[in-house]
């Protein structure tokens, strides 16, 4: 039997157990007062039947794949397979698909012969797994039903399972973070075994060409990431911030201090819309409209090296996208400054702008700085705008009209096309990803600690 069948079987047993538990509980209720509602008794029985069995199936399914493959390789046809890994994988894949009826015939002749072996092994192991699962389900059902009695706390039992579910859901967050860290580190370590970390972190040459095959006379790749980080900082932390900080801060000041409540009511969402536009749209806009205009402007003012993939174009558009991030954090910070402080300044005859510049803003500064750091972190991690509007040339230049490349662009570039998971080219993407993750992590932590300290000041 297949695992799908086993799954259905487990669920059927669970339903049966639930029904039994329910009727029993109803019966007991006529005789006296129950601790828990019959529904809880039913649920209790169902959970104890299904959950252990399902857990088992979840673990068995991937394990079964390995077991099946081992068994197939042990057969005479399996032992006759070629040594070369890629070819062998392809044959096994085809055989598996033929056995499952997903395809008629494969490109490799061996796969047709292998298919029956697959079918047989899968059948065998499927039966074993399914059988165990059903046994577990039955055992669970028996154990649950035996406990039913009027004073049995079925509800507490159910709630304990629910609590376990809640904790599991929360752990997924940690698992994800761990997963990111581990997968990135694992691949990066493999990368650093091929390319020395010093070269990567401090090298200024980035040309990740690697020989595709052992016999190809290719250039040795240079994996110096400094131009990439420079491009990222230039576009995201410098040009974009030059646009976003003044516009975002002054917008926040105007909306909180000067605008009527009614005007603010629709102007604030307007700014939020800027944050909601998908970045691919920004990227296309940058490539289609802004970049040519910037290039023409650059050539017009005499910079002949102005490229149509300039850092300025990407930075401008990214700055526009970041405005709402700066503005909303600044808004919150300024609004949190107590009115008493503002009144104190106004009562001394200061104008509104003097109050804002000399009292409110200095008081709100930690929050505003936190917001700016978060915005920088966002800009650094942005991908689509730079992929579509900035270039691929790893250039270490301070001329905004020239083309630079960024970390995120290169990650995309390295992972498209042929991917061999052992070439330094592919692994470099993970190393870049790890660096990006760590940098944004540090920025976020600093920003959040700023904001937290600031909030404590005023609460």
């Amino acid at each position, binding site marked *: 039997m297949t695992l799908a069948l086993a799954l259905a079987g487990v669920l059927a047993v669970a339903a049966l157990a639930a029904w039994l538990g329910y009727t029993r509980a109803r019966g007991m209720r006529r005789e006296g007062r129950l601790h828990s509602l019959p529904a809880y008794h039913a649920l209790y029985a169902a959970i104890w039947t299904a959950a252990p069995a399902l857990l088992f199936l979840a673990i068995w399914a991937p394990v079964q794949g390995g077991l099946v493959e081992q068994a197939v390789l042990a057969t005479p046809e399996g032992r006759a397979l070629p040594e070369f890994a890629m070819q062998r994988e392809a044959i096994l894949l085809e055989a598996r698909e033929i056995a499952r009826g997903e395809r008629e015939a494969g490109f490799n002749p061996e796969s047709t012969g292998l298919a029956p072996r697959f079918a047989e092994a899968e059948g065998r192991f499927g039966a074993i797994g399914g059988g165990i699962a059903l046994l577990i389900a039955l055992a669970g059902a028996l154990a649950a039903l035996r406990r039913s009695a009027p004073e049995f706390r079925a509800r507490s039992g159910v709630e304990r399972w629910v609590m376990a579910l809640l904790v599991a859901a929360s752990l997924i967050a940690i698992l994800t973070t761990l997963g*990111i860290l581990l997968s990135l580190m694992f691949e990066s370590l493999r990368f650093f075994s091929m390319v020395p970390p010093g070269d990567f972190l401090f090298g200024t040459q980035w040309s990740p060409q690697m020989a595709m095959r052992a016999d190809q006379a290719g250039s040795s790749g240079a994996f110096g990431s400094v131009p990439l980080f420079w491009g990222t900082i230039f576009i995201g932390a410098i040009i974009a911030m030059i646009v976003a900080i003044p516009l975002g801060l002054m917008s926040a000041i105007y909306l909180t201090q000067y605008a009527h409540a009614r005007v603010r009511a629709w102007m604030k969402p307007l*700014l939020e819309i800027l944050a*909601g536009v998908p970045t*691919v749209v920004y*990227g296309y806009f940058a490539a289609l409209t802004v970049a040519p205009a910037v290039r023409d402007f650059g050539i017009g003012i005499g910079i002949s090296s102005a490229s149509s993939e300039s850092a300025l174009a990407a930075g401008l558009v990214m700055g526009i996208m970041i405005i709402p991030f700066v503005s909303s954090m600044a808004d919150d910070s300024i609004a949190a400054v107590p009115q008493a402080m503002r009144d104190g300044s106004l009562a001394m005859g200061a104008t509104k702008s003097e109050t804002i510049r000399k009292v409110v803003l200095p008081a709100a500064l930690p929050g505003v700085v936190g917001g700016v750091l978060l915005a920088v972190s966002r800009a650094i991690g942005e991908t*689509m705008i730079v992929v579509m509007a900035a270039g691929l040339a790893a250039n270490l230049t301070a001329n905004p009209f020239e083309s630079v490349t960024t970390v995120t662009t290169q990650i995309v570039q390295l992972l498209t096309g042929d991917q061999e998971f052992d070439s330094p080219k592919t692994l470099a993407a993970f190393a870049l990803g790890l660096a990006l993750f760590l940098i944004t992590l540090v920025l976020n932590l600093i920003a959040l600690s700023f904001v937290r300290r600031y909030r404590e000041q005023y609460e």
Partner: protein
Amino acid sequence: MSSAPDSLAATAAPSRWTGDAMRSRVRKRYVAERRFRALGFAAVALSGLFLAFLLITMASRGLGGFTQHEAALPVDFARSDLMIDPAALRGPQARETLAAVDLESALSQAATAAFGAEAGEMFGGAAVRALGEKLIADPGLLERRDTLWLPVASAIDVAAKHDGAEAAERMVEQLQARGAIRRSFNAGFLSASDATDPSAVGVWGALKGSFLTILVTMMLAFPVGVLAAVYLEEFAPRNRWTDAIEVSINNLAAVPSIIFGLLGLAVFLNVMHLPRSAPLVGGLTLALMTMPVIVIAGRNAIKSVPPSIRDAALGIGASKMQVVFHHVLPLALPGILTGTIIGMARALGETAPLLMIGMRAFIAAPPTGFTEPATVLPVQIFLWSDEVDRAFVEKTSAAIIVLLVFMLLMNGLAIYLRNRFERRW
């Protein structure tokens, strides 16, 4: 009043304020005040203008993508080389029958016959598809002469809308002189999938892929996010582990989306060998990215339910779990839903992580399941933006309009929900 030696400033009080020096200072301060206020307004106005400029640019370039030019082609199938059995067209094998026939040559022949030698390339993939639809709808066409309005090839379409190649321009003039060209709504754009011929492309394939992906994302991220929010807000003790979980979640919400793509690539594709480019994998990746957003929104919503409600329920004898699931969660639901919809809207617009897991293939037909190769609308836009053919510019912009409409709808729905159902305690 205080006499001169007692006062703090050099001059006596009342005249201090009326002196020239003071007056000019005050005037300057007011000027500075007005300038500051004007700067603030300019900042907001400029931001609004940027947004308007972006939207207007996209709209103006994209609206053309929803229309196409059609030319009137006189056909006489009876006299052509086409061998199609009308009966087959009425049966269930209609599309297969059509696929086996070379409609493109037939069209080319008819066009050359009607408009001259240059008209051989006048019709493209869109016309073939349209012709196929017409034949299935009315197999009687095969037996008579008729004039059909068919969409022109993209070169002609571009020439008619803006400027094109010389030959195409000439063609357009000729057609216009004969009154044989008209502009009509391009319904195919919304029902077709990707194609090589820009006149035949549509967004439906990508839309369906997006729907499937978002469905997977929602089914995974929503329960996990809500349950995690409930646990962290209601049950979690204050110790190092829960602090770590909280810090984790707050950080995950700010991690660049491309990192999730790398995670998906490393784990879902390379370790778990899930099918590449499938909505299942895309949904999983986006779910990991959206889950922290839902947790944070959920926590805020749960936090805003007043303790008095919890106390009341506990006082009746409900267990903690019942208090949460029967009372708190329903009241927090509007806030949670709002946050979820906003998170989904963001996921809908994400491109980078899906590029990483391979959803960038050329998908010529809409996906039929969660494990079929598919693409999503933002990625489709990205792929089309790379195309050199000028005709793709308006198609890309039109697809952007579709995407923006969906974003607007989803955000609008979230705002509506928030205003209608969220209670201010």
